[in-house]
């Protein structure tokens, strides 16, 4: 079926191993060894240019997702601080946090829309990594816009794009 996402073809085993390590790592905090292996594989002189380009794309996405995930975590911590230890301080959000939430969602949606059809594997990985943090924000707020319904639990499980998602 053409709906199934395809991993890119890679001939060089070093590039392939670095690619697999990056896709398997937790992008909330990239391990130094994985980053070093990826940089070594990207700077290596090899015939597998297409594989190196795919690895470069994944590496760029990983670094950006790590940084943006930190921004989302900062917003979450700000919300947690404002509501108090046991939730006694629950109140409407101040304007700067609502603006930040709106902008963060906009960035998230635009980033996911910018992937090409042949990069579905990378889009799924990004959605899994960032979607978890978006759901942390979503669970802390009520009255969000309807567009937040697109951030589903399925988006964080890696099942996005599968049969289950399409049936729902």
């Amino acid at each position, binding site marked *: 079926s053409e709906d199934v996402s395809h991993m890119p073809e890679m001939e060089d085993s070093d590039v392939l191993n670095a690619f697999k390590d990056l896709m398997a790592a937790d992008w909330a*905090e990239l391990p130094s060894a994985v980053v070093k292996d990826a*940089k070594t594989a*990207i*700077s290596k002189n090899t015939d597998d240019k297409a594989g190196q380009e795919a690895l*470069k*794309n994944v*590496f*760029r*996405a990983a*670094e*950006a997702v*790590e*940084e*943006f*995930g*930190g*921004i989302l*975590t*900062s*917003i979450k911590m*700000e919300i947690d601080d404002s509501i108090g230890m046991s939730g006694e301080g629950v109140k409407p959000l101040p304007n*700067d946090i609502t*603006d*930040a939430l*709106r*902008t*963060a969602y906009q*960035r998230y949606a*635009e*980033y996911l829309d*910018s*992937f090409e059809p042949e990069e579905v594997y990378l889009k799924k990985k990004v959605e899994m990594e960032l979607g978890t943090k978006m759901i942390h924000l979503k669970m802390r707020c009520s009255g969000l816009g309807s567009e937040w319904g697109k951030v589903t639990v399925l988006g964080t499980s890696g099942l996005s794009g599968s049969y289950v998602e399409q049936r729902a």
Partner: protein
Amino acid sequence: FHIEPGTREKALLAEDSALKRFKSHKKSVHKLKRIGDVLTVVVVAGCCYEIYVKAVMKKEALAAGKSS
């Protein structure tokens, strides 16, 4: 060796007035951890040196006592 971010990554992380207050702390936390590691190594080295000095002084005192 540095890989330039792509256009979509630049768009994701572009400076924005709403998000300016919520910067990521990944880099500073990473540096702080390394500084902590360096300080830990220094403290451990200091303790080892102190133990070594005490042992040597005890040995010298013992030798002096024996010779006198």
